[in-house]
């Protein structure tokens, strides 16, 4: 699904994340962990192609993301950003419908299948009732759910989520973990979620991607994972 080859990611001459060789599989939910400033967002931006690589390559479905057009890439990979756009007069449903842009015609007309997919992504996250609200009226937590619904509507085989749970209450965090895990398995997607919720992620039996705090190497840890291991690798702390 996603392959890294001698990839270095970061800014100018200071690499943040190094990946010698790594393959991420379909049907999996990975939790990306790392210290603040360790390069989690930068890594996700690099996978989605809006951050240039320092060296090496990233392949999706055996194709180098740097050489694939944005239009093609937008059908393969989506990113939920940690910030929500400040926009007046945009309803939740309209916002989520933008996730269908890669599939609609030049005028952006939604077909029946598009509308069905939008309704379904609202249902999956239990936010159907928000559909006709303006996005400017939502709470921070609701905005995160709405952003995730947009990514689900985009229906890509890779979904990246950049700290999507920061504002969510416990039950929504749990729901999100379980839902994403189920979506990954049922629809054979590769989902990467950056998060600081170690306990919750361990409890829901997720696999981890940890940015090593000493070497900047990205390592995979398959479930079951012990909290101490995670702390040792990603946070370099004995708690």
């Amino acid at each position, binding site marked *: 699904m996603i392959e890294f080859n001698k990839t270095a990611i970061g800014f100018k001459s200071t690499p943040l994340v190094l990946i010698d060789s790594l393959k991420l599989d379909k049907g999996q939910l990975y939790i990306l962990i790392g210290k603040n400033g360790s390069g989690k967002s930068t890594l996700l931006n690099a996978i989605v192609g809006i951050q240039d690589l320092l060296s090496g390559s990233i392949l999706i479905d055996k194709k180098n993301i740097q050489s694939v057009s944005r239009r093609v890439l937008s059908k393969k990979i989506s990113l939920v950003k940690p910030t929500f756009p400040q926009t*007046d*007069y945009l309803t939740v449903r309209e916002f989520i419908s933008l996730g269908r842009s890669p599939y609609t015609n030049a*005028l952006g007309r939604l077909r029946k299948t598009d509308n069905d997919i939008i309704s379904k992504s609202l249902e999956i996250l239990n936010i159907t009732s928000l559909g006709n609200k303006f996005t400017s009226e939502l709470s921070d937590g609701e905005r995160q759910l709405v952003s995730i619904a947009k990514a689900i509507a985009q229906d890509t085989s890779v979904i990246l989520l950049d700290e999507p749970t920061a504002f969510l209450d416990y039950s929504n965090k749990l729901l999100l973990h379980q839902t994403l895990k189920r979506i990954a398995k049922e629809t054979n997607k590769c989902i990467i979620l950056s998060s600081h919720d170690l306990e919750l992620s361990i409890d829901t039996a997720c696999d981890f991607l940890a940015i090593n705090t000493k070497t900047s190497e990205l390592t995979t840890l398959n479930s079951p994972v012990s909290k101490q291991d995670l702390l040792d690798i990603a946070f370099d702390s004995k708690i």
Partner: protein
Amino acid sequence: MNITKKQSAFLIIAGIILPLLCLTHLFSGQISIESQDFFDALFNYNDKSMSQKIVRELRIPRMVMALIAGAGLSLSGLLMQTLFNNPLAGPFVLGINSGASLFVAFSIMTGIPLLNSGLGIIPSALIGAFVFGIIILFFSAFVRSHISLLLVGLMLGSFTSAIVFIIQSASSSEELKSFTMWAMGSLQKTELSQLPIICLLFVTGVIGSMLLIKPLNTLVIGEDEAKLLGINHKTVRLLIISITALLTGLITALCGPIAFVGLAIPNLVRIVIKTQNHFTLILASILTGGAFILVCDILIQLLESSIHIPINALTSLVGAPFVVLIVLKRLA
């Protein structure tokens, strides 16, 4: 994106009011003209009749120009607001008008052969608007904040007027007069024979914007998001700037600089119909903008016997307070 009942009602009402305003505009003015003369002027023209001559040479061009100036500037404003994700953007504040003015000044008052040759005002204004569009686009890549971009636009405007002043002080009184006449702004200088090409350029701009509805709708949530949704943002940016330059340059060349329409009307439209669907926004901005300038010009003609108000002054009188209101509403 769906159109609600309220939005379609707005479009229908605006669509009915606009032709009525056009008619009112045609019949306003110092000299009263019979409807028979209007009919004859169009379909059975007799160049000996004074009334028919007035219709063809004054009334119709002025009405069409008012309509196109309002519609075109509002549409430009809408496009720029979406492109820069900034409700306070517009062709005037971002200096697109200044670009057109500068190149018109070059064309009228300098001896630079390339600029004052047979090209005339319209192409100079178009080139100026486009060049300044590219400049502001260039700056937008570096300044992240809304306010900074507006400041860059304003500085661009001041810088340009300084150059224009210098050119003015160095030019002959004849050139100076013709530039000042142009810069005062007027809807009356267009001739009937120019209308077909003007309409063609305007319609090109409108159709071009309609073809950009999908990228415009995605740009509403930010350029990065639009990129992630597969929009080729570089091409789209260039197309939007080209359309804005085409419309603003054209209108500025013909009517002089007209302030605040491009900034105020799209905001008014958004506040009233509450949508980000650009199909509706484009139509509503065109209709409302056209109606606004028609009303302004009808007012000007009503007051003409006692006081002469330039169109630019009237739009500023109405537009500036409205923009302050928007700012206050945003801060509240």
